[in-house]
C-alpha cells in the first residue's frame, strides 16, 4: 500500500496541511489502531499526518474550573496523572485497562475517541464525566458534547480538516468513579461490555446514600456508547438501597441494546450490564 506521510510538530502547520490536502487523511498519533490496519492492508490510500509531536495536543491541566486533557495524551500519562485520578477517577481506571503497557505508552485518548468504536474503553468514562470535546480546524474551534461525537461505528462528526484538540470537563468536588469491563482475559482483550460511572454523593443526607451527581454509560451494547438515563433518573430520585440497586440493574438490562458477535452473545452482554452496574455501586451500600 502506498502511504504518503508528513511529520508536523506545530498545530498551525498541521491544520494548514489538513485543510489543503486532497483526498483522505489519517492522523497518526499513537498508531496503535492505524498501524494494525495498515499491516492488515485494509486502509484506503491516504495522506498520513504524523501528529504525535505536536505540543499543543499534549498536557493535562486544570484551567479555571475545568480539567483539560490534550487529544495527544497517552493512556499511560492519563492513568499516572494525579489530576485525572482526582477529577476523573473513572477515566484513570479506563486508561489503566487499555491494552498492555506497550499500547498505553503510545495509544492516545484522541485516537480512542476518533475511532468512534462502540467498544473504546475510555468513552463510557468520558460519557459519565459529561466531557466536552474541543475540535479545531483552520476555520476555527468548536465544542461538542462527547455524546454527540460518535454517530455510528467508525463514523464521527469531524469535518474535513478538523481534529480533536482537547477533552474538557468540569472539576466536580468530591467526584468518585468506577470503570469496569468484561473481557476474555485481563490484558489486550476487547471488552464484551464495559461501564463508566461517575458520581458525587450528597453530603447533606443524614442517613443512607444519595447522589448529587450521577452519570452511567455502557459500551459495546449498542452502535455507539450509550448513556443509561433511566438508570440515572431512578437512582437519583431516592436514597440507595439494596432493593433499589437491584431494580436499577434490571433497568440497565432493558436500557442497553446489544448484538451478538464474535466476542459475545447479546443475552450475555445484557445480563452483564446489570452485573457491572451492581459491582460498581454495591460497595456504597
Amino acid at each position, binding site marked *: 500500500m502506498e502511504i504518503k506521510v508528513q511529520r508536523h510538530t506545530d498545530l498551525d502547520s498541521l491544520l494548514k496541511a489538513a485543510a489543503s490536502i486532497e483526498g483522505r487523511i489519517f492522523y497518526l498519533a499513537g498508531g496503535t489502531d492505524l498501524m494494525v490496519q495498515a499491516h492488515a492492508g485494509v486502509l484506503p490510500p491516504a495522506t498520513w499526518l504524523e501528529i504525535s509531536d505536536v505540543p499543543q495536543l499534549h498536557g493535562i491541566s486544570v484551567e479555571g474550573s475545568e480539567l483539560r486533557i490534550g487529544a495527544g495524551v497517552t493512556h499511560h500519562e492519563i492513568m499516572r496523572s494525579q489530576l485525572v485520578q482526582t477529577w476523573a477517577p473513572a477515566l484513570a481506571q479506563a486508561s489503566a485497562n487499555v491494552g*498492555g503497557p506497550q499500547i498505553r505508552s503510545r495509544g492516545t485518548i484522541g485516537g480512542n475517541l476518533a475511532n468512534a468504536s462502540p467498544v473504546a474503553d475510555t468513552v463510557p468514562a468520558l460519557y459519565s464525566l459529561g466531557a466536552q470535546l474541543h475540535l479545531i480546524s483552520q476555520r476555527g474551534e468548536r465544542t461538542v458534547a462527547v455524546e454527540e461525537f460518535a454517530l455510528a461505528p467508525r463514523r464521527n462528526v469531524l469535518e474535513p480538516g478538523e481534529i480533536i484538540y482537547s477533552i474538557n470537563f468540569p472539576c466536580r468536588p468530591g467526584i468518585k468513579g468506577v470503570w469496569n469491563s468484561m473481557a476474555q482475559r485481563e490484558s489486550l482483550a476487547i471488552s464484551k461490555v464495559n461501564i463508566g460511572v461517575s458520581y458525587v454523593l450528597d453530603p447533606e443526607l443524614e442517613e443512607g446514600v444519595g447522589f448529587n451527581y450521577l452519570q452511567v454509560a455502557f459500551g459495546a451494547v449498542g452502535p455507539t456508547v450509550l448513556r443509561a438515563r433511566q438508570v440515572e433518573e431512578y437512582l437519583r430520585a431516592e436514597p440507595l438501597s439494596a432493593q433499589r440497586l437491584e431494580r436499577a440493574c434490571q433497568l440497565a438490562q432493558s436500557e442497553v441494546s446489544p448484538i451478538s458477535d464474535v466476542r459475545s452473545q447479546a443475552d450475555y452482554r445484557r445480563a452483564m450490564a446489570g452485573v457491572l452496574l451492581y459491582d460498581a455501586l454495591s460497595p456504597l451500600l
Partner: protein
Amino acid sequence: MAEKNFRLQCTVNGHPIDKMVDPTARLLDTLREELHLTGCKEGCGQGECGACTIFMDGKPVDSCLVMTIQAQGHRLVTIEGMAFEGRLDTIQQMFVEEASVQCGFCIPGMVVAARALLEEKEDPTLEEVRYALGGNICRCTGYHKIFRAVLRAAKIERQLRLEGKPSQLKDLPGVHPAPSADRL
C-alpha cells in the same frame, strides 16, 4: 519498497543515528533491516505479542506499531543496549539463572517490559509483574520462571541500593561512563 527519502535523526542505544530511511516503514523493520539490530522480533505485527518491544523515551513500546518517521528526535533503546560491556542487565542475568528461556523468541521483549517495570517500581508484587508483562506473550514457558526472574532481579537491585551500590549487577565494577537510567 518505498523510497529511502527521509533523514532519520535519533539516538539508538545512546548512539546518534543519522541515516536515510523509508519514513513509512515500521520502526521494527528499520531497526532490524537498516540498523541490523535484530534483537527485537516480529511475532504478530499487530501489537498483541510484545516480541518487538523496545524503549522509546524510556517507555516500552511495540516497535511494529511505530512508524519510522515517529522516531525522529526520540531516544530508542533496544535489547542490544541493555547489556553493558558484555555484562548482562540484572534481569537478563536472572533469566539465565532461573532458566526462564525456552525458544527465546519472546525474551528480548519480556526483558524490556520488565526493565520498564523496575524503573518505576523497585518492589513490585507478583500481581504488578503480571500486569507489566500483560503485553507480552510467551508460547513456551508458561510464564512462572519469567515472573520469578523478574521478582528476583528486583530483590537483588533493592539489596544493592540498600548497600549503597549501583543498583544493577552490570554496573558493579563501577567503571561505566553513564548511570543506567541515561541509557533507557
